[in-house]
């Protein structure tokens, strides 16, 4: 890991406008939790809030963070300034991933647990489970989106289609999609930690953890490998 790259990436992530949107997403989730709490005694709205947080807010935060640390620099080629250095490209990617991951944890997974606590402070284990599920999914999401950003200029759209269309639309129609769905792995982990979140269509703890770890390692390595072959082009 390289402190300078982490610092630069953090500045890119929390830069003015992106920072605002990044913070707005968890704020919206927590506001929803507060509103739901005021409307009901807490339990009715839990499914809706947790669902929104896990299937929408978390991947969006991961996508915003991961695309911020790599996307613009690769897009306009100014990443050459970072790459023309005696620093291994894998170190560059891992440092950038660390930034995106930390952002996803703080602004994606942590708010999940907080929202659950807002809904019912007495169910601490449920909140912890949701937070852990979010952490596992967020770890894989941010790695996956980072690799997409290293692979294509349309990383953001591809990432959105993956989460919203593949995991969301197709996932709700075809049960088998869950085996290839980062969000489902997160839900499975949450279900293992707290029986309140258990789901019969779970992918199982071991499979989910192994799959998330594998996706994370492979995609981060892949992103590093892509950067090793980074090519400088003239203006198109």
């Amino acid at each position, binding site marked *: 890991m390289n402190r300078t790259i982490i610092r630069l990436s953090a500045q890119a992530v929390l830069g003015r*406008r992106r920072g605002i949107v990044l913070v707005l997403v968890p704020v*919206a989730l927590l506001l929803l939790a507060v509103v739901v709490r005021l*409307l*009901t005694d807490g339990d009715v*709205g839990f499914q809706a809030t947790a669902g929104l947080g896990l299937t929408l807010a978390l991947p969006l935060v991961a996508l915003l963070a991961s695309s911020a640390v790599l996307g613009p620099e690769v*897009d306009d080629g100014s990443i050459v300034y970072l790459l023309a250095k005696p620093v291994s490209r894998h170190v560059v990617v891992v440092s950038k991933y660390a930034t995106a991951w930390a952002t996803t944890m703080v602004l994606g997974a942590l708010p999940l647990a907080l929202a659950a606590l807002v809904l019912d402070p007495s169910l601490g284990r449920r909140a912890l489970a949701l937070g852990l599920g979010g952490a596992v999914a967020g770890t894989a999401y941010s790695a996956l989106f980072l690799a997409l950003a290293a692979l294509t200029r349309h990383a953001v*759209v591809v990432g*959105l289609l993956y989460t*919203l*269309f593949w995991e969301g639309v197709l996932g709700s129609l075809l049960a088998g999609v869950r085996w290839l769905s980062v969000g489902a792995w997160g839900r499975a982990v949450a279900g293992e930690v707290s029986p309140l979140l258990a789901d019969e269509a779970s992918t199982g703890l071991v499979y989910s953890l192994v799959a998330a770890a594998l996706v994370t390692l492979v995609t981060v390595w892949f992103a590093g490998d892509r950067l090793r072959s980074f090519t400088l082009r003239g203006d198109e």
Partner: protein
Amino acid sequence: MTDPSAATPEGRSVIHDLGYRPYTGPRLGQGAIARSLVGTGLRNAFGLGRSGRSKVLPFALLALNLLPAVIVAGVMVLVGLDSLPIGYAEYASTTQVLVGVFVAAQAPVLFSRDLRHGTIALYLARPLGSGTYALARWVSLLGATLVFLVLPVLVLYGAALLSELDVAEQTRDVAVALGLVVLLALSLAGVAGLVASWSTRRGFAVVATIALLLIANGIVTAVQGIAGAEGRPRIGEVTGLFSPYSLYRGLMSAWTGVEAPTPPASTGMELAYVAVLVGLSAACLGALVLRYRRVATS
């Protein structure tokens, strides 16, 4: 050696008339410029007139969006159902993710690139006001969104007519759906255009638009579901005003009878839904015009 003065007599210097002339014919006005800008923008939104790679994304999304309609049409023709398995208006609601991604992904094509690369100055150096420019871009995006939304409706309509369903009934349903779709397109184009002009980073604009549209929709849906379950539909109705998708869903439910949580129950509320959709797009358009006016003067 020759005498230089003899070799260059007075008046030898001359600028030859090669026939270059300034254009003195009639010039087209703002309207024509705007019209051609709208046309180009509409083509560009689908990657036409741009590189092959920029065609991939819009057409892939369009194909994904049309796929269910084509399948439905095929089933209709083969099996011979006596009604469409999915309503015309319901279709856009079901594929709202694709619609959102399309609008979010293509809005930066029209709104971000000129700002980011500074080519906006080239447009504004013509007799084209910044307001007209913003309006033309918005109309292009609106048109592209409408193409995206209307095509599957037409496919379904064609399938219904080929299956000899009641023409009058189907036509009425299509008309209602088209009205709804126009309202949705108006608001989506406004929101996406505004976000894209605000953030000139393409990827960021896409996520920000989607976050805005889908998270608002998610929150509204959650609250509506809870309000319905708690027996307080009034809260759900009012909450429905806060996101384009829920506004669309509410009106769709009120006008076509498709089930949706806490649709607007009174005519007054329906009017409010329409007013918010139109007002939202007008506000976005106004903000766009202001944004480009500021760009033009700074």
